[in-house]
Every structure is written in C-alpha cells, then in structure tokens.
C-alpha cells in the first residue's frame, strides 16, 4: 500500500481534527467535562502517568504477559496448523471442530482460568494463549495451503532435498501469510491479556484502566486508553513494515 504525500497529510489532519473536536466538545461544555476531560488535559495526564514507577511497573507486567502468551501460542499454533495442513485425515477430523471452537467468545471461559490458575501471571498468560492459538492454527493452515504445487514440483525436478524444499519453497511462500497471521494474532493476544487483567488482577495496565474506570478517574482512564492504543498500533505497524519488505513480490 503506497500512499502519496497528500493522502498521508489528510490522515494526519483527520487525527488532529479528532483531538481538536474532543478538545472543543469538552472545553465548550457541549459534553460534560467530567465525563470527557479535554484532550490536552488527558495528554498531560498521560505524560504524568508515564513518569510514575507504578504505571511503568504495570506496563512491564502487561508486556511480559503479552510476550509470554505470544511466545507460547505462536509456535504451538503453528505446529498444529502445519500438521493439520499436511495430514488429510487429521485435517478432515479437526478442522470443523476448530472452527466451532474459534466461534465461541473466549471471554466466557475467563472465570475458569481464574479458578484453575488463580489470579496472577499464569491466569493472564493462559488466557492470552487461549485467545490467540485458534487464529494461529487457522492462519498457519492457510499459509501452508498457499504454497503452490507447481513450485514444489519445480523444486523436486531440480533435486531439492526436504530441507531445501522447506527453506527455499515453503518458507518464502508462506512468509507473507505468516506475517499477516502474526499481526492479527497479536491483536487477539493483547485483547485476551488486557481483558484478563481487567476482569481480575492485582497489576497490569488493564487492571489500572479498570480501576480508574470504577473510580470515575476519567483523565487517567482516557490516558490509559491512549497508551494501550499507541502500544497496539506500534506493534501492528512494525509487523506491517516487515510485511511490505518481505512481500513486495506479491501483487
């Protein structure tokens, strides 16, 4: 996706306009400023919060939970997805079941995670893992299926070994789909962890946001929203950047 300068400027303009509207609505009293504190105040609060040791600690806790859940869900899911794609019988049996499982809202299982793991790191990582693994499995299956038979035949006709076929045909064929899968998985993963934190937790940024909401601390709440949004978008853009570099040949 290539954007010209004017398109980029228009995007920036829209973001600024949203913040400006937010500011105006609040300052003029069109919206109760206790419900919607001005954008400038919120951003000032955000800067202030980021200085605090407790908030920094919460961010670290959330980040470590997200990374742990991600690091578990991606290889596990990828392995299962790969086996599913390569084994006809296994695929025929398990695929519909996975789709059923995927369609269930994961949040209804949250109480069970708390009962099993207690309130803490394992509960949140477990729930993050659970929220993520289905999408990883399904995306990996798609990625393996995106490998063209013609390309495998070419490799075979030039005497490629199994390892060469894996690294020179499977991997590059799958990479664009895999990166996309990674990006979407992270969205599910972050959602899962934050949800678990908001539901029952002693620390983490999700827990903080829930507490601020309950205490009607709107400035802090909105600052937290901006914070999490920024983190999510940064990660998303990072993978998208790698994606465009790796899949320039995809047109």
């Amino acid at each position, binding site marked *: 996706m290539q954007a010209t300068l004017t398109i980029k400027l228009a995007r920036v303009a829209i973001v600024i306009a949203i913040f400006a509207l937010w500011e105006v609505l609040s300052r003029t009293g069109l919206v109760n400023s206790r419900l919607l504190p001005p954008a400038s105040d919120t951003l000032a609060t955000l800067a202030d919060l980021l200085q605090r040791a407790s908030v920094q600690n919460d961010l670290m806790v959330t980040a470590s939970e997200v990374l742990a859940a991600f690091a578990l869900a991606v290889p596990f899911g990828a392995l299962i997805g790969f086996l599913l794609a390569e084994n006809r019988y296994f695929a025929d049996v398990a695929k519909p079941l996975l789709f059923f499982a995927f369609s269930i809202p994961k949040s209804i299982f949250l109480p069970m995670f708390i009962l099993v793991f207690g309130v803490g790191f394992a509960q949140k990582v477990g729930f993050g893992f659970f929220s993520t693994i289905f999408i990883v499995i399904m995306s990996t299956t798609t990625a393996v299926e995106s490998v063209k038979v013609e390309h495998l035949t*070419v490799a*075979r*006709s030039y005497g490629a070994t199994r390892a060469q076929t894996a690294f020179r045909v499977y991997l590059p064929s799958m990479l664009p789909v895999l990166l996309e899968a990674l990006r979407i998985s992270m969205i599910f993963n972050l959602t899962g962890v934050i949800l678990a934190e908001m539901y029952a937790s002693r620390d983490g940024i999700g827990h903080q946001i829930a507490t601020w909401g309950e205490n009607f601390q709107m400035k802090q709440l909105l600052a937290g929203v901006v914070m999490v949004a920024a983190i999510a978008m940064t990660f998303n853009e990072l993978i998208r950047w790698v994606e465009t570099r790796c899949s320039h040949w995809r047109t």
Partner: protein
Amino acid sequence: MQPLANVTPLKPPPRAGAIEVRNVGQVFRTRSQDVVALEDVSLDIKPGRFVVLVGPSGCGKSTLLMMMAGLRAQTSGTITINGAPIPQPDPDRVGVVFQEPSLFPWLTAEDNVEFPLALRGVAKAERRDKAQDMLKLVGLDGFGRRHPHELSGGMKQRVSIARGLVQDPPVLLMDEPFAALDEQTRMTMGDELLRIWATTGKTVVFVTHSLTEAVYLADEVIVMSPRPGRIVDHLQVPLPRPRTYEMLSGDAFGALRDRIWRHIRKSA
C-alpha cells in the same frame, strides 16, 4: 525404416540426449475402477531432435513427459535417458520447463535461474556467471534484477527456459510452456525456442495442444489418442530450417497439420 546402426554387432553406447521409451503403461487406480492413462507406449528419440507430443486432453502426453523427467513412475515398461533409467529427477540429464506459474515470485529473474545451482551449493560467483550467460542466451540480458511480476508472460517463460538449461542437461522437456501466452507472443517464443535449440543442440521434447505449433517447431510429431493414451502416429516433418512464417500457409505444412487433425478428430 531403421538406420544402419542396427547392423553393428555391439550396441553403441547411447549418446547424451537419447531417450528410449519401451512398452510404457500407466494405470491410475481409483476406488471404483482402474483408469488406463497410457498403454504400451514405445518411442525412440535421437539426440538433438526436436520432438513434439500432441494430442487431445487426457491422452497422457503430459504424464509421459513427467515420467521422462523422473517426476512420476510408470506402472509398466522402461524409460531411459542417456541409456540409464530415470527413477527420480536428475537435473544433470534433464531440464524441465513447466507452464507459466512455475517461477518463484519472491526471487529475481537471475535468482530463479540460479535456483538449480543453489540447490547443489555452487559458489555464488559461478552461479551468477552461468545465470548471466543463460539470460543472454534467452534474450533477457539486463533483466536479471527484475521479479517475475515485473516481466511479461513471454519473458517469464524465457526465464523458465534459462532455468531449465542452466545445468546444461542434454535433454530439455517442455510441458505446454507457451499455452498461457497470447498468439503473437506464442509465435515469437516459438522462433526464440528454435534459435535456442539450434544454438545449444539439446534434445527437446515439447508437449502442446496446438497443431500449428507442433508442425512449426518439430522434427518429429508424435500424435497420441486418449483413453487409453497410446501413440497413433509418428510423423517426420521434412520442412527445411530455419522455419519461417511463410511456411505456415504452404501446402506441405497444411498437409501435415491435416493429417494430425484427422487423428485427433477421430479420437475426440
């Protein structure tokens, strides 16, 4: 008519590029029945010849080609290339050119051509030199850095041919390589292929649906019929080389094409 070679008491060692197909059959077993894809196909292809396999869909011409490439096993009979069987692909003896989508889209044209060499661990500099030579041979000098999506259909098939030739095998097998191209490009590519063939002296076995393409390119045309696939005619094409566009409208050309057409119409 058999040439004098048969008179010699000892069998001469097969020259590089000779293909022998002896009583080859192929049966696909499905749950309900056995489908005979090829039945008792025998064929001798001499080194350096340009042989075209033609026939309607389902006559097993591509199957036969894939067997010559070692990509598929026959149910019965033997196939030898350079006098030895080919139970699995052997890039030293056989290069294969497939239909259009076979280039790796993530590699540049030169990396695609180098691919067979890279598999064997040939050093980068040597690989690059050979790829450059091959790209020059197929008329793509200066296009090495492009990716397949930046090349036209004809150019992509030139890259495929370069890839098929990069290890200098005596035999080049081509499975409907120009089927996806438009008519003009197809004609141009035919001429290009004949030029490359004349330069390299390879044995070429070429599969096509097009009768005109078959007669235009070939020294010999093998006509096959479907279900079960077998050889129904083996024509010599006596037209002089180089072949020209004017020959297409000549009587000799028309007579050959009609003869093939009659076989195909019978079996369709």
